[in-house]
């Protein structure tokens, strides 16, 4: 049994296909006929271009973009002239010259601070490998030509590997290197095939044809397991598939409890692609669009136009369904290097989110302008994060009104019925939520921070993680209070933290009267199934009982009988 990092969930059962990257023996020779070496380079470049174009014809949009970058590298005069110059000046054979230049280029990009630029090193190595194979007259293994469905076992999976993969023929893949955010892991999740990465030396321990079982959520691989083990996992896989199929039937149904209480299940997303995925998973809206991803992994602020395009895309994907877009929430654990924010002793209690936006009004205005312009394409709701006082709401709304006036001056349209709400994630806001409710259109409870601030527990600190508990009675009482205060003022109340999708908390939240539950897309269908089986009236009683319990432990034990 081998243990790695589970990168994409699901059970895979099948034969191994070990992707052997040929180890090329690159020698360094002194060459007399230099023109001959340069000719070889040109041939290898031309052949590589043809190959990449052929793969490109069969790939999807995202892969096409990656391969476009590969083509540009193959046509790059700098790359070509560097290799040619090395051949001439050092009388070096083409293979050694190419190796030197590739190493030099890859190391330049690897040493850059920007994540985007770092990733370009992988592209250079990928293209380099293809060129080198062509120089040696060897064929690169073509994953598009697999004859039967297999589990790919590889040192690493490169962008051109995934671009060639036929989802029908690849049951899953496992690799020696990589982590949760490496290219291989991201692609596995987006292709929805099980994968484990970072197994160390799995390629040395598995041969092509070996029988493998692995579970992408546990990160465990079994090589040539016995019959009873195979039977067990086949049964588990079948159960998994049957449950999935059962759940898929609920994609287009409403979320209504047994006794007729209707709630809305939304998705938490970070980009337009996630919005498509949440659609496939039956989301009734977007409960939280985290806009900070537009600002991250780059070297400068996104423009109004870039933001407008992203917001518009999400709104169009969701059509009439509501889309709650949260304004910039940086600071805390989310840093933007190009903003040069000062280091703080307590970043979670510091200069972050709305506090930055009310100070750096230009940044805030650009975002609000993009949001308002996009509002005509769907059902937009704007949400301010980290609100701790009424003054902040008023100040933020003042900026919003100012931006609206600017748009009117410029004759640019925006929707006339945009709801504006706030995140309730600071105890101070929860405690005066009766007063805040009079000045906003909705609340969304952010449990991740609410728990952290209520219990004074840094959620990154492992030593005290046992105190970070959603069953904490103080936290549950605060949540209940916010919902009641919201309803008394006639506004709807949602929740967009991890807790909203937790099957152990859903019965309590339903009983408290929560109107909207926003969660990761994958949790929506299981949550819908659960709520359809619950009675709202019964859960009201359950919630009342829970609110009288004094310890987290008692509550957790009590609630398990309803899950």
């Amino acid at each position, binding site marked *: 049994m081998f243990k790695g990092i589970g990168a994409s969930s699901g059970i895979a059962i099948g034969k191994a296909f070990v992707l052997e990257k040929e180890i090329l023996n690159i020698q360094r020779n002194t060459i007399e006929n230099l023109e001959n070496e340069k000719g070889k380079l040109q041939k290898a470049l031309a052949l590589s271009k043809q190959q990449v174009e052929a793969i490109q014809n069969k790939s999807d949009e995202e892969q096409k973009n990656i391969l476009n970058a590969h083509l540009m590298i193959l046509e790059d005069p*700098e790359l070509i002239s560097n290799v040619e110059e090395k051949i001439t000046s050092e009388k070096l054979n083409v293979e050694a010259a190419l190796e030197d230049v590739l190493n030099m280029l890859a190391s330049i990009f690897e040493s850059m601070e920007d994540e985007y630029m770092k990733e370009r090193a992988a592209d250079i190595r990928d293209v380099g490998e293809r060129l080198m194979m062509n120089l040696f007259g060897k064929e690169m293994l073509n994953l598009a030509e697999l004859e039967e469905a297999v589990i790919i076992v590889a040192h690493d999976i490169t962008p051109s590997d995934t671009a060639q993969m036929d989802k029908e023929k690849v049951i899953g893949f496992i690799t020696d290197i990589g982590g949760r955010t490496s290219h291989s892991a991201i692609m596995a999740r987006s292709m929805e095939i099980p994968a484990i990465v970072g197994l160390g030396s799995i390629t040395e321990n598995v041969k092509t044809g070996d029988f493998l079982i692995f579970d992408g959520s546990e990160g465990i691989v079994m090589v040539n397991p016995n019959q009873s083990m195979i039977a067990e996992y086949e049964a588990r896989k079948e159960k998994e598939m049957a449950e999935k199929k059962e759940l898929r039937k609920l994609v287009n149904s409403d979320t209504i409890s047994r006794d007729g209480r209707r709630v809305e299940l939304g998705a938490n997303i970070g980009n337009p692609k996630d919005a498509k995925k949440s659609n496939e998973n039956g989301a009734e809206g977007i409960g939280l669009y985290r806009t900070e991803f537009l600002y991250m992994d780059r*070297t400068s602020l996104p*423009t109004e136009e870039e933001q407008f395009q992203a917001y518009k895309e999400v709104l169009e994907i969701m059509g009439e369904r509501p889309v709650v877009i949260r304004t910039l929430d940086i600071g805390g654990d989310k840093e933007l290097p190009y903003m040069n924010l000062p280091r703080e002793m307590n970043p979670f209690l510091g200069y972050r989110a709305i506090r930055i936006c009310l100070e750096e009004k230009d940044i805030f205005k650009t975002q609000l302008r993009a949001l308002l312009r996009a509002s005509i394409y769907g059902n937009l709701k704007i949400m301010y994060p980290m609100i701790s006082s009424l003054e902040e709401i008023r100040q933020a709304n003042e900026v919003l009104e100012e931006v609206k006036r600017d748009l009117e001056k410029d004759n640019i349209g925006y929707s006339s019925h945009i709801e504006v709400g706030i995140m309730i994630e600071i105890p101070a806001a929860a405690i005066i939520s009766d007063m805040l409710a009079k000045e906003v259109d909705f609340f969304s409870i952010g449990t991740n921070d609410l728990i952290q601030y209520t219990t004074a527990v840094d959620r990154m600190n492992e030593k005290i993680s046992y105190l970070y508990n959603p069953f904490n009675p103080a936290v549950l009482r605060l949540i209940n209070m916010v919902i009641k205060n919201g309803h008394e003022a006639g506004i709807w109340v949602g929740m967009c933290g991890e807790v909203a999708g937790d099957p152990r908390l859903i019965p309590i939240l339903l009983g408290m009267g929560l109107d909207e539950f926003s969660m990761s897309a994958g949790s929506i269908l299981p949550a819908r199934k659960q709520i359809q089986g619950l009675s709202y009236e019964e859960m009201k009683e359950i919630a009342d009982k829970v609110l009288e319990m004094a310890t987290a432990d008692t509550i957790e034990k009590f609630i398990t009988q309803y899950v």
Partner: protein
Amino acid sequence: MISQKITVKNVAGLHARPATLLVKEASKYQSDITIVKNDREGNAKSILGVMAMAAKKGDEIEIRVDGSDEKEALAAIITLFEFNFGEE
């Protein structure tokens, strides 16, 4: 040879998309086109060369053009910069 100094004004700097546009434009001309930043030189027709310069907003760079169509080439490249590579 002619040259002109210019400040990178677009927010993304010479990052992925602007770099691609610059290389595509530069490749239309016969002349050699070089970007110079802090004494480091990069070939404007090379995506690797341009991106490796990692020019950010606010950086001052010099564009040097040498060849038969140098005037047109320099004008075209300066225009790209002045229009912030089509960003807002």
